[in-house]
């Protein structure tokens, strides 16, 4: 067993460690069992995270105590809702060290954030023959919106390739930057390989070539300290539901002057200053981009999730999940002969481990693991081009979060041996 956060045993001067065993009590769902009576072993946090009580109660509190619309009501309850909603902006700004909370735009998820930038900024700034540089490891959310932009505007896409270990080839990136792209968009952490990309260096290189930079932080913000100012990014996007928050919550951060210059993405109520029958004037940022009643409860819940994560300390979260990745990369090949693992060494990755058992389809793997209460992802994880790159139809993926303990990786190993036994009998 890994020497992982045994309760209160650490006497090092290192930063506070996270105690996953104690904080598991914060997640009510971990006390549940599946239809076979097996306790939940949740190893699919990269798809969506579990929610702590603090988040559940924040959502519940809004619905029970001050369920009213924001930015409109004069009565006290509505002011309370507006206050809680706007306070989330401040919390999110603190979480990613954004200089100006008003440059946080609330969206449903990272996908919507990227679409917002693609429609609003992209269609105004990408023209005929302009290039956007992406990478081979992008989630479909950071690929398909750009395909639509270049198809419509007659631009081009280029892709930074990866090594067999799942690391971006920066020497090729450098060459692609000679094309003087208008935009470079890449993921901070790969949702399939777990690779943590050198986002600061890549951003500097892009800026030196005159490109703006959009970073997909969906797999980074929940798992490590993120500082958008230190990275130097122009656009940074992430989802709330992967960072212990509710589904339907998410954020786009961008440099204020970029947001000021961008036209609205969706139109309607709340995003306007004046409306006349034949013309309107836009509200200021960020409200210009938040048409209609948003998912108020979810965004307030995301604020509670940000508080929870900052309370744990993102450095401690990162150390914990990297140790889990290292443990999995060590235990799985030892305990499950023949297993194929994808992605880089533990030092270069977050808490994501994708794998295959030879001759067994990942859906069969996932289905049999389900009998033991073990939840993993099986499929292409919304990265079909990346799977093509490795000539794989699909992979199985185990992904970790603050509540994951090494015993669950042990359970996965036992479960995988059972899969092999069933298929070999």
């Amino acid at each position, binding site marked *: 067993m890994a020497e992982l956060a045994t309760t209160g045993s650490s006497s090092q001067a290192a930063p506070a460690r996270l105690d996953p065993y104690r904080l598991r009590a914060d997640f009510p769902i971990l006390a549940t069992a599946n239809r076979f009576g097996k306790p939940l072993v949740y190893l699919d946090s990269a798809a969506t995270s579990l929610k702590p009580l603090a988040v559940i109660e924040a959502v519940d509190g809004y619905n029970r105590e001050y369920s009213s619309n924001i930015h409109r009501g004069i009565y006290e309850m509505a002011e309370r809702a507006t206050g809680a909603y706007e306070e989330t902006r401040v919390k999110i700004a603190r979480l990613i060290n954004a200089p100006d909370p008003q440059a946080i735009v609330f969206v449903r998820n990272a996908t919507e954030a990227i679409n917002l930038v693609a429609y609003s900024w992209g269609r105004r700034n990408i023209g005929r023959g302009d290039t956007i540089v992406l990478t081979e490891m992008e*989630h*479909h959310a950071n690929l398909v919106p750009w395909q639509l932009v270049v198809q419509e505007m007659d631009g081009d896409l280029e892709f930074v390739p990866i090594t067999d270990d799942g690391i971006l080839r920066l020497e090729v990136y450098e060459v692609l930057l000679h094309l003087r792209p208008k935009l470079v968009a890449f993921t901070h952490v790969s949702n399939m390989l777990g690779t943590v990309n050198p986002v600061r260096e890549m951003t500097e290189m892009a800026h030196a070539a005159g490109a703006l930079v959009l970073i997909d932080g969906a797999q980074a913000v929940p798992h490590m300290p993120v500082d958008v100012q230190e990275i130097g990014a122009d656009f940074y996007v992430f989802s709330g539901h992967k960072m212990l928050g509710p589904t339907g919550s998410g954020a786009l951060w961008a440099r204020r002057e970029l947001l000021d210059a961008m036209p609205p993405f969706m139109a309607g109520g709340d995003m306007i200053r004046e409306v006349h029958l034949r013309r309107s004037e836009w509200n200021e940022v960020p409200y210009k981009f938040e048409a209609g009643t948003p998912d108020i409860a979810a965004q307030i819940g995301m604020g509670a999730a940000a508080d929870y994560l900052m309370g744990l300390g993102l450095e401690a979260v990162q150390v914990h999940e990297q140790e889990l990745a290292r443990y999995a990369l060590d235990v799985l090949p030892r305990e499950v002969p023949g297993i194929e693992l994808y992605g880089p060494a533990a030092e270069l990755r977050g808490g994501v481990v994708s794998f295959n058992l030879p001759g*067994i*389809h*990942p*859906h*069969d793997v996932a*289905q*049999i693991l389900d*009998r033991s209460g073990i939840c993993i992802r*099986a*499929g*292409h*994880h*919304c990265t*079909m081009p990346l*799977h093509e790159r490795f000539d*794989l*139809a*699909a992979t199985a993926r185990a992904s970790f979060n603050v509540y994951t303990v090494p015993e669950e990786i042990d359970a996965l190993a036992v479960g995988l041996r059972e899969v092999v036994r*069933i*298929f070999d*009998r």
Partner: protein
Amino acid sequence: MDDLYRDYILEHYRHPHNFGVLEAPTASYEGSNPLCGDRITMMLGISDGIVREVAFTGRGCAISQASASLLTDEIKGKTVEEVEAMTPDDLLDLIGIEISPARLKCALLSLDTVAHALADEAGEKAEAGGSASAKSQASSPSQG
């Protein structure tokens, strides 16, 4: 313990019946299930309205491959009308295990692919006879 992975299902997966290619199929179709990466090519040799020969190639999960193996055994020697009349429930009965909703697409890919192969063939015949018929594409929404 595992209803889904009974011995005969795994046996069909490991040693699928009718796995291979026909040299001159009268109808064929490649079906896929992008969600899982299951892929099956069905080849039929039809004469006098009867499926005389059938073969398939492909790769995918145990459920999709065992289903194709069982289905190809079943339809060989049947009339085209009989095959066209087969319903998803008929195939599920044939497979004989309880399929969870998430795996239905895997289980039914083989029948879907056969149906497309027959529809294509019927379309070509109709075209040869002067009436146009749009070719259908097997597809199902991809996840993510």
